């Protein structure tokens, strides 16, 4: 006997989040097709409803749709992650007024525990949506269900069908059954195209059919993951509600370079910048790292050019989040992996990054018995972070990072950082 979950979980999901963020400040983007591009302006990673209606798919490469974009006046923007991050933080702060238990699932999706709200559940969800809209200008939809998988599907229904008015409640069995019979199985959380094909071979095309398949067959067709999904569709919670995001075990900062990096000096600047950013992220999260891995490679998609890749790890002892230490270690690792003449050879590196491993909370990190004396202390790191916080990222950088920035990612169409840079504030003409 399966007992469905009785505690409602809501998923609040920002509609076309990146495009919505841009539209808060640039009113000329309303009512026209807008897409936001991936790093290096390669493909569409977010689309407005108008762009979706033109048939522009998620991940569509720009070079293949130039004609279509020109014909329909599609506005393309580079990703402005600074802006999206700030807007996401604001959305999260609004949501905290509505439930003591939240779980941020992604930059634009948050699970909200609505148990204990009883009959006020729907008004609560509606008020939550309105508050986010009012405080940030970001439109959202809310899906409610007894499990996370069902909450996600309810959100999908809320987005697709205006009849729900932005809030769809799958705690209501009639609504749930109606919708599940009409939603394609591919929309279910975690069902990829391979699983979808296997299910189709068994005649399973709708979510309702997936829900009703025997659990054992589910495990045979997919894995234990699919079996759990089937159980979740029946209302049995199998995916935990996490109050806090799991502690990060690793962290990476990697970027593609706009122009190939030919000399060690240019590569070193990029890696110094990535290591600096990684150290900043560590300090933000109150963590220290035990290893740092540096890697860089050429562009695999240009097979006519000479190909190579390098990666070197360095153990950090004691564990650290100090920018100077991190950059020094990264430099040693980068140097160790470099092939040939530092002034440049045949390889043009297009991607470089640092990966941190063995992360620990600062307080739990082992200390040295005889710490070496050194002039650079934690106060310097504090000062570095404070200055870069107040005056904008990269106000203070290590000289190793250089000032040329020839390695910077292409982002020719990026909108201003409206909310985080005083010199890029939106302007109102009066």
């Amino acid at each position: 006997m399966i007992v469905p979950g009785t505690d409602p979980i809501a998923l609040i999901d920002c509609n076309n989040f990146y495009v919505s963020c841009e539209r808060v400040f640039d009113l000329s983007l309303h009512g026209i097709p807008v897409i936001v591009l991936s790093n290096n302006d390669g493909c569409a990673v977010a689309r407005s409803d108008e762009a979706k209606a033109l048939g522009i798919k998620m991940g569509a490469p720009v070079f293949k749709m130039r004609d279509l974009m020109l014909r329909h006046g599609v506005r393309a923007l580079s990703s402005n992650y600074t802006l999206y991050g700030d807007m996401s933080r604001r959305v999260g702060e609004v949501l905290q007024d509505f439930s003591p238990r939240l779980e941020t699932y992604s930059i634009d999706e948050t699970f909200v525990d609505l148990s204990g709200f009883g009959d006020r559940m729907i008004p609560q969800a509606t008020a939550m949506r309105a508050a986010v809209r009012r405080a940030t200008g970001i439109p959202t939809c809310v899906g409610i269900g007894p499990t996370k998988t069902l909450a996600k599907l309810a959100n999908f229904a809320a987005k697709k069908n205006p009849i729900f008015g932005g809030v769809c409640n799958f705690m209501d069995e009639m609504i749930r059954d109606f919708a599940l019979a009409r939603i394609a199985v591919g929309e279910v959380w975690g069902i990829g195209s391979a699983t979808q094909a296997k299910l189709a071979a068994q005649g399973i095309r709708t979510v309702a059919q997936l829900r009703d398949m025997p659990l054992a067959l589910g495990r045979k067709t997919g894995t234990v993951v699919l079996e759990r999904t089937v159980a979740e569709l029946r209302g049995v919670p199998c995916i935990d509600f996490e109050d806090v995001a799991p502690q990060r075990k690793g962290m990476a900062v990697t970027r593609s370079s706009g122009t190939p990096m030919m000399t060690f000096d240019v590569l070193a600047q990029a890696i110094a910048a990535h290591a600096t950013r990684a150290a900043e992220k560590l300090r933000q999260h109150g963590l220290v790292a035990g290893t740092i891995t540096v890697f860089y490679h050429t562009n695999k998609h240009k097979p006519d050019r000479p190909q190579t890749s390098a990666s070197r790890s360095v153990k950090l002892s004691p564990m650290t989040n100090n920018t100077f230490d991190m950059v020094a270690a990264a430099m040693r690792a980068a140097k160790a992996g470099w092939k040939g003449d530092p002034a440049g050879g045949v390889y043009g590196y297009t991607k470089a990054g640092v990966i941190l491993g063995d992360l620990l909370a600062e307080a739990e990190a082992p200390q040295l018995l005889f710490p070496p004396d050194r002039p650079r202390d934690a106060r310097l790191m504090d000062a570095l972070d404070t200055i870069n916080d107040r005056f904008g990222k990269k106000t203070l950088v290590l000289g190793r990072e250089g000032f040329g920035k020839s390695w910077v990612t292409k982002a020719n169409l990026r909108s201003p950082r409206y909310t985080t840079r005083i010199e890029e504030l939106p302007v109102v003409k009066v």
Partner: protein
Amino acid sequence: MPDDAYPIDVIHVPRQMPLAATPVPAGFPSPAGDDLEDSIDPIAWVVRQERSTFWWRIEGDSLEGAGIFDGDLVAVDRAGHRRKGRIAVAVVDGAITIKRLALRDGQWFLDPCARREGYKSIPVTESTEIWGVVAGVVRRLPIE
């Protein structure tokens, strides 16, 4: 995923990278240490709701009657209450503007705040969107 991103094999070549640690400062502790406070932060006084406050830069002279000048920064609270007399950021015909909210005979208006004549009052219609309410002004004067 960006189209040029793909997983690569990571070869681990462990090396020790000895680092320095923080020295302990010696000497008599400052008696003022416990009495230090943060410096005064007028921005925190202007911004009552950080999450719904956005800054805009003013260009033009039609708000001088409201004490807002060319080049000023205004803090706009999107969740601020729309009341008569308040200075509001409004979207009119797809363009953004700042005016004073007024109520006359049951009809809302966006009144100009210019010192000189020639600006018209705009009636609030269904298509007018109030973007937010101005919560404060920040002006910088030359010191050089």
